[in-house]
């Protein structure tokens, strides 16, 4: 337990700011470290009904990054609540449930099903890989506003909205979410990107476009988190290419309260634990007693 790493994310206390990002983490990682050391775990993007996901190649490497086109394959919210939630509950980490839908009605239905033992809802309005991924809602502040307003009405649980980098309106969208009662924001989801198979003269992905993540996107993610943190007063989870304690601290310094780790889990399954330790070591070395002392110091 590192007391210096405790953070308050809206109404919730996190034992440390390190959260495993949606779609990149699961209980399988227990093979490598004790998951109860994490600040929190985001579920895979869940939909109302189970989804089989996209056909064809689903993961592709690029310089310092990967592209994915999983297409939100998931077991559906009901199976998640029955099968996976009980396991996570025993871990004593913050449980974050990431949900998507194709329509406002779908979002309302899925959010209404989430029980109180869940700590935080992450409303995904940013998956670039399927229609049901909500990107439709994540592109403009008007659509985002409407969705958050309706969802806010049906749940008392803390609500965080996961933003997409695939828009020109990021800051406005962030502000609309705050105005409509979101308790926090997480950003960013993957960048819409493309890969070409030169030999076959066609796109690598059946869906043509796919989502780019990993170290390659970190500088842009950092800029986006910085921009948003200047303009909202609800807490932000910074996401994008975080691979080590230094990366994590950079996000904190531009204003993030927590950070999420995605692609880096694939490079080293125990990376979240390492990030926690590296952050702790840095704080001790610098004589910092709480992350609050450095959060947002870069204006």
């Amino acid at each position, binding site marked *: 337990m590192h007391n210096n790493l405790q953070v308050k994310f809206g109404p919730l206390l996190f034992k440390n700011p390190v959260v495993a990002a949606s779609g*990149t983490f699961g209980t399988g990682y227990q093979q490598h470290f004790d998951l109860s050391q994490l600040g929190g775990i985001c579920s895979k993007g869940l939909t109302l009904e189970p989804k089989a*996901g996209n056909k064809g190649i689903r993961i592709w*490497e690029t310089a310092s990054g990967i592209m994915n086109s999983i297409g939100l394959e998931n077991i559906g919210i009901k199976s998640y609540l029955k099968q996976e939630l009980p396991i996570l509950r025993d871990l004593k980490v913050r449980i974050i449930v990431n949900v998507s839908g194709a329509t406002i009605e779908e979002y309302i239905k899925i959010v209404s099903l989430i029980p109180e033992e869940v700590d935080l809802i992450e409303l995904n309005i940013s998956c670039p890989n399927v229609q049901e991924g909500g990107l439709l809602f994540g592109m403009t502040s008007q659509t985002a506003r409407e969705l958050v307003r309706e969802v806010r009405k049906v749940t008392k649980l803390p609500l965080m909205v996961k933003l997409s980098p695939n828009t020109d309106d990021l800051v406005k969208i962030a502000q609309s979410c705050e105005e409509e009662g979101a308790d926090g924001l997480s950003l960013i989801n993957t960048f819409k990107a493309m890969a070409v198979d030169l030999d076959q003269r066609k796109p690598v992905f059946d869906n043509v476009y796919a989502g780019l993540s*990993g170290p390659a996107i970190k500088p842009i993610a950092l800029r986006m988190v910085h921009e948003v943190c200047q303009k909202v007063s609800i807490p932000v989870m910074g996401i994008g290419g975080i691979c080590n304690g230094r990366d994590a601290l950079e996000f904190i310094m531009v204003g993030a309260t927590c950070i999420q780790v995605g692609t880096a889990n694939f*490079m080293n399954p125990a990376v979240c634990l390492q990030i926690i330790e590296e952050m702790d070591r840095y704080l001790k070395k610098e004589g910092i007693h709480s992350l609050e002392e450095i959060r947002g110091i870069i204006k």
Partner: protein
Amino acid sequence: MAKIIFNRKIASNIYHLKIEGKFEGSRGQFYMLRGWDGYHPVLSRPFSIFDLDSQSISFIYQVIGEGTRLLSKLKKEDTIQIFGPYGKGFPPAKGNVALIGGGMGLAPLYLTARELKVDNKVELVDIYLGFKEKAFLTDCFEKVAHKLIIDIGGLISQKVNVNLYDYVFACGPEEMMKAIVKQKKEQKTQIFISLERRMGCGLGACLSCTCQTSKGNKLTCQDGPVFRGEEIFFA
């Protein structure tokens, strides 16, 4: 970090990598290997356990692209990161067993054969290996097989009659495994195949490695890589 005992070229483009340490694992399981520092390549690479004892683990790999090219540069005493063991391997067997490997598909069959050979429920283990151009590792397989059948340049699936066996374990190109499953006529013959899919995590989290089966989508890394042959809808 683990230390490399040797990383030997055993045929054109094919290497035998032996790593020091006491590692877990059973036949048909795999590890994710990372023989480079930093973030490029991003993903670790999956390889089947070739052999395992109380002091070392070894792998056989072919150089395909950047990841395996970097692996091939490693020397004795260099360090490597390995994560595993992952997945579900080959099940227990009894009676007459055939192991069929196409190309690099031979990799998981050596430990399998070595274990089955000393298993008193198993009467015999015949090993069928198919190669494109030149055979390799045949000395090694010879020692653990009752009969070793080799094919070079043809189709190894045509040299085997799976219906003569109680258990058939196969690993290789999907075409080969498909042909083997198709041969099955005898109820008693149980066929298990080992699949390959692109992988992100290896741990059942990213859903990159889904395969289609008669029981719905399954994860190659966690539910497999070994599946019952009849269950798989081959790509």
